[in-house]
């Protein structure tokens, strides 16, 4: 017999529009595999690197001068919480790749602090992903990935890498930090692809 703790509800709420195994939260939990990196905006740089090593880079001023989108999306964390209606501002990955010549099929996101995650290129284009630098009308807080983070809302949130530094375009797939430690390589919340064998 399992032990049920009387009167314990936890933080989650039930909801219908949720992917399987998720609970809704109104908080914005902070998850992190390491300390929060401190990156001065004068030192900050975002790079796109192609499979033959061609680099395009943006300083903070250049990056924030690019056309940006406002987007409101639901996010789903693999630790079972989902948050509805989060409001972001950021640059579409399509904009960053507009002048990039590539036959890559995969992308590795590299971050300040050393975190990595891998995503198929086709999941980052056609208006599906952003490099976000505002949340809820405010500059993105460092604990939530500021100055700028990747935002790929249709995949589990570990793919939305915080403290983004570079997008590396690759011909082959290179599993990232959690993908090499038992998590699913793709991570679709609607198919509940949490772990490698799911």
């Amino acid at each position, binding site marked *: 017999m399992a032990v049920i703790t009387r009167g314990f509800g936890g933080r989650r709420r039930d909801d219908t529009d949720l992917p399987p195994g998720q609970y809704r939260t109104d908080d914005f939990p902070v998850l992190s595999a390491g300390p929060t990196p401190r990156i001065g905006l004068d030192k900050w740089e975002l790079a796109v690197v192609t499979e033959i090593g061609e680099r395009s880079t943006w300083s903070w001023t250049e990056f924030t001068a690019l056309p940006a989108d406002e987007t409101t999306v639901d996010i789903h964390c693999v630790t079972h919480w989902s948050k509805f209606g989060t409001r972001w501002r950021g640059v579409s990955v399509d904009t960053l790749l507009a002048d990039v010549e590539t036959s890559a099929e995969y992308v590795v996101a590299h971050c300040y602090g050393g975190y990595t995650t891998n995503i198929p290129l086709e999941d980052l284009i056609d208006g599906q992903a952003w490099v976000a630098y505002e949340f809820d009308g405010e500059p993105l807080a460092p*604990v939530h990935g500021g100055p700028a983070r990747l935002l790929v809302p249709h995949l589990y949130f570990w793919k939305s890498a915080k403290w983004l530094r570079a997008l590396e375009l690759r011909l082959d797939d290179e599993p990232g930090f959690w993908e090499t430690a038992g*998590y699913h390589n793709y991570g679709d919340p609607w198919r509940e692809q949490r772990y490698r064998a799911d």
Partner: protein
Amino acid sequence: MSTTNVGADDPSWVDGNALAGPLGELMGTDLTVAELTCANCRTTRPLAAMRVFDRAPGLVARCPGCEDVVMRLVRTTERALIDLRGSLVVSFPLPNA
């Protein structure tokens, strides 16, 4: 709306001591007194003295000297995975030694 209660300057890690439960359940022994040699800076410390980030998809232990990852522990539906690529050596005290 409440976004976060964690101030950016309020460090959030705990000590490797906190791994005693999750690891003990798997291994049947207290691994937090084992010593790990960081593959990056080569200093050796007990696991209990590493920095553990426990609010994440898995438990991540980092070397307090250089901040590199020395151990990761992930619990999937059917398996538990301990990744030690960040450690060169893991040494255990022997009982009754």
